[in-house]
């Protein structure tokens, strides 16, 4: 691990100023991802700012019914929160399908959103990787790409976004609240993460010194009927090969409202709005779900080792739709 200076911030302003004044500074909340990456010499921050003393640890129900989740709320606390379980089961399930209990006790809401990819070439400093070393090339495109993305890829990078929580956040139209050197601002979750394009090293819209303070989930009554299904190589403690977060409102056998986001198959948490639109007004049933799944994956581009992924993602999505919408056919 490269040496770094360590500062414990007493408040948001102190943290933001310290980070803004020293390029490459990283905040540390849970540390589950960054400490690992620092040990591998992939992250080399000259300074770490410990933000665990900041007052960002509350889950609040706002007067408009929205839920405000502090950036330092632990993944385990969020997953087992009674309001989250009843109003947004997809979020609770997504969190509990990620990592291990120990890691969930450490990992924070803000940090989860900022997780780096688990692409094995990103982790292997002996190989080229545009995300790790811009301009060095992508080892995955012509390499072993079984776990890699089929949606949102570019000729520079095909790494998947690893977060389960973020898939639910994308489906729920969450809002990321950020405080920076120039004040506060709010970013729609779908605009927060960037597609790799020619700059895969730039993964989100945050600027140096920007601190995620909270994530807000808008009130969405039909999300009480939602789920998260994750398919992976082993039953637990593994990243997704494909996952689907689905919320469905069905009345009299007809789909009135839908939310769909996919994980494990895309370079960022992947919202499938076209598939949602396809479902609305249709009869809830497997044939409808199959057609919607085809819409969700129609732009998939596969690589030699991950050609199974579009079909796996479709079946995962169909299963999640069946779980939430039933089968009236």
């Amino acid at each position, binding site marked *: *691990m490269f*040496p*770094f*200076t*360590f500062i*414990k911030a007493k408040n948001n302003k102190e943290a933001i100023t310290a980070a803004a004044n020293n390029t490459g500074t990283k905040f*540390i909340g849970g*540390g*589950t991802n960054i*400490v*690992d990456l*620092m*040990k591998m010499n992939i992250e080399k921050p000259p300074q*770490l700012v*410990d933000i*665990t003393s900041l007052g960002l640890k509350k889950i609040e129900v706002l007067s408009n019914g929205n839920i405000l989740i502090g950036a330092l709320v632990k993944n*385990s606390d969020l997953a*087992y929160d009674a309001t989250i379980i009843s109003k947004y089961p997809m979020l609770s399930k997504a969190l509990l399908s990620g*990592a*291990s*209990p*120990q*890691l969930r*006790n*450490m990992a924070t809401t803000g940090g989860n959103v900022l997780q780096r990819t688990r692409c094995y070439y990103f982790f292997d400093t002996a190989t080229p990787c545009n995300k790790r070393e811009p301009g060095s090339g992508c080892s995955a495109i012509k390499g072993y790409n079984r776990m890699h993305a089929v949606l949102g890829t570019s000729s520079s990078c095909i790494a998947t976004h690893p977060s389960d929580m973020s898939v639910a956040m994308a489906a729920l139209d969450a809002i990321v609240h950020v405080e920076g050197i120039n004040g506060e601002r709010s970013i729609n979750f779908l605009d927060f993460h960037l597609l790799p394009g020619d700059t895969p090293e730039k993964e989100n819209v945050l600027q140096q010194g920007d601190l995620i303070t909270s994530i807000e989930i808008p009130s969405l009554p039909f999300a009480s009927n939602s789920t998260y299904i994750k398919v992976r190589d082993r*039953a*637990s*403690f593994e990243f997704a090969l494909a996952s689907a977060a689905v919320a469905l409102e069905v009345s009299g056998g007809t789909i009135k409202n839908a939310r769909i986001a996919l994980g494990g198959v895309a370079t960022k948490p992947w919202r499938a709005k076209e598939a949602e639109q396809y479902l609305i007004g249709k009869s809830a049933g497997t044939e409808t779900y199959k057609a919607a799944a085809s819409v969700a994956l129609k732009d998939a581009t596969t690589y030699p080792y991950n050609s199974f992924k579009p079909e796996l993602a479709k079946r995962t999505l169909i299963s999640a739709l069946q779980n939430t919408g039933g089968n009236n056919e």
Partner: protein
Amino acid sequence: MTNKKEKNSLVPENNGTTRREFITHSAALSAGIAITVSSPSKKILDKVKQPATGHMVISLQVNGKAKSLEIDPRTTLLDALREKMHLTGTKKGCDRGQCGACTVLVNNTRVNSCLTLAAMCDGSKVTTIEGLGTPDKLHPVQQAFLKHDAFQCGYCTPGQICSSIGLIKEGHAKTDADIRELMSGNICRCGAYQNILDAVKEVQNA
């Protein structure tokens, strides 16, 4: 396995000497190295008050005892426990948060000490396997692991026990499947999973 004290002429009586200390002393003696508790270098070190450049001083409460440590900020809690405090019961497996051998309780919550920077634990209460029970009065989870033979080689066991205590306190496991899922952060290469499950269940239902 048995926890009964057995007389064995080949093994000296345990007078508070750990296996590690015994091996270290034996190796040093066989190599002809004299161990002096109070060497000149130690006396000089004791006088140093200021931390070295870039180092920091943290305070922890480890197994009920207050500890003050000078550390490089890169030091993980795992390395601080093992290398600085010589609490080698906590094991280093993968050192990357994947195997759970390093699991300890920080402020009564189970975490991976290998991914926890010691600097972030300043002021925290840390409980390791050494702080759970004594040979005469084992922690109920330790006792249950012995009773159900919940280990073979024992390397993952300190982590498994700390994780089990965390799981029971968290209170989310209702079924066998829940316990297996919520123990999935602890790998046992010997495959004692069924017996670990039995041990956890016994304490949980007690």
